[in-house]
């Protein structure tokens, strides 16, 4: 692949309470890939994304987005957090949550207006949630909540998307709907990084993959490195996924 590097991570080390969770990670993600991050629970997948996004401060190392620090490239990046990271009983509606995707571009104090509302409605439409725009978010199913989160990121109209387990606890219809949107993003030249759990679907959904377990095990094209050897190194048990290519 001769695409430019969209995301570059150098010597990244992150710890909570002095316990290292990510150890000396080097990573280059080329523009335009749809990449899965795989690894067992507690491997540091969420931590890696949060460190790239500046939510967590690393002990050492640096991250750049198209050659510049994240702070300068915020407009290029959108984030879909793990669904369980927020309280869905919060008093607000689907449309309101999606509108939050416009807040970054609005900046301080300015309120969302007609333009922002229109953008939010379009994103709701794209994820098939327009009929639910006025729905209180606690009254949505897990899959619908996930679509709302995706729509909120789509509103940002970014070049790079980070998604933390977008398929967790969603129904099959939603999974297909989401993966189709991700593939569309890739087709539009965007870079999409997804924390993913279902190893069986990796070759079908993604073209790029990073194996992570505190350390980076491997990163590259799915067709080159998605094999039993790397899976075994990452998951620590003798792994045999028969992947039909």
């Amino acid at each position: 692949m001769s695409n430019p590097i969209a995301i570059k991570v150098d010597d990244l080390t992150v710890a909570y309470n002095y316990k290292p969770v990510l150890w000396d990670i080097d990573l280059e993600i080329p523009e335009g890939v749809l990449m899965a991050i795989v690894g067992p629970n507690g491997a540091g997948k969420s931590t890696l994304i949060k460190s790239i996004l500046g939510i967590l401060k690393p002990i050492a190392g640096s991250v750049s987005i198209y050659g510049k620090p994240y702070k300068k490239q915020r407009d290029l990046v959108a984030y879909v957090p793990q669904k369980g990271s927020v309280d869905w009983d919060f008093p607000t509606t689907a449309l309101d949550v999606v509108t939050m995707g416009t807040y970054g571009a609005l900046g301080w104090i300015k309120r969302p207006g007609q333009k922002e509302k229109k953008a939010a409605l379009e994103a709701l439409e794209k994820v098939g949630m327009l009929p639910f725009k006025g729905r209180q978010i606690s009254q949505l199913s897990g899959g619908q909540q996930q679509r709302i989160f995706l729509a909120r990121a789509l509103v940002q109209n970014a070049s790079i998307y980070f998604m933390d387990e977008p398929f967790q606890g969603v129904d099959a219809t939603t999974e297909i709907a989401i993966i189709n949107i991700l593939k569309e993003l890739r087709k539009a030249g965007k870079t999409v990084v997804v924390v993913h759990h279902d190893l069986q679907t990796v070759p079908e959904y993604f073209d790029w993959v990073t194996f992570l377990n505190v350390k980076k095990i491997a990163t590259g094209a799915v067709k080159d490195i998605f094999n039993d050897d790397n899976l075994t190194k990452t998951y620590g048990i003798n792994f045999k996924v028969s992947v039909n290519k």
Partner: protein
Amino acid sequence: MNFTDYTFLVIAIGTAILGAVCGMLGSFAVLRKQSLLGDAISHAALPGIAIAFLITGAKESNVLLLGALISGLVGTFWIRGIITKTHLKSDTALGLILSLFFGFGMLLLTFIQKQPNANQAGLDKYLFGQAATLLIADVYLMAIVTGLCLFVLLLFWKEFKILLFDADYTKTLGFNTKFIDVLITSFIVLAIVLGLQTVGVVLMSAMLLAPAAAARQWTNSLSTMVILAAVFGAFSGVFGTVISASQNNLSTGPVIVIVAGVFVLVSFVFSPSRGLLFKQIRFMKNRRDLELYKTLSFMHHIAETHEDISHPHSIKLLNNFQGFTRKTLQELEEKNYITISGLNWSLTPEGFEKASNLYNQNFKDE
């Protein structure tokens, strides 16, 4: 007690304003699940009152409250520091600071009271509050702070909302979440300090949380919640003042808190969407509907075996199905799903359709 009395009016207006500002800010504490925060702040303020008195010898509430504000802020941001630096659970940090400051404050109060010639009478009013000592100047101060709070709330409404819902995401958008957080917390400290004279250290956090917890029950919109909480808080203040004024021996602070508690109780029981009562009613109705549909689908099962769906079948046939009662049959007939003649029932076309839809629905859910 004369309700047009000047002192009474001052106290009533003061407690109403206090209730309103506490309700507004309490909404944020409730939604962030920081229910201990109010307790920690008010307890942390106590040593500040004592120290301010020791230094200045003054008894004017403004001087003492300034002391309270300073030690409240110190305590609060110390807690934040502990939480972010050590990753102690926030409850632990809050509890720690709360007891540390309160213990120190009590120690100082005891020391002050033992001093022979000190003009110390009345400092203990900050423990349980004494609304009767409110002066018009105090009320002005409350009004100014409330106005300021309202202004900041409107100005940063969008930032407050998104921070409350999803702090990590807010950070990725480029907002300084620390600033927003400090802003909210500072106003909460300010409101609590203002309430100390009226409600006291011990009950202050109830004043903060109760109106907001009650308001949450009635609405699914943040703005409505904040407004309702302010209204509930203001009413608690006024009702509490009226009740304690008409019963000479009741002190105002605790009565206000009890009134706010009644708001909570009523809200948790009677709110249409979240209240226990309607939940129970909905539950019972659902169970009744379910029983009805179970019977109907059993009938559908029998009717299907016959070419004519409305062919009459004996009620006895239902006997090996436990879920039906005479009442169920009656209700089904009322809904026009079946007709009953003598000891026989037969499905109507509507009933047949309803029952087949039930099947389809079940199938789709699987």
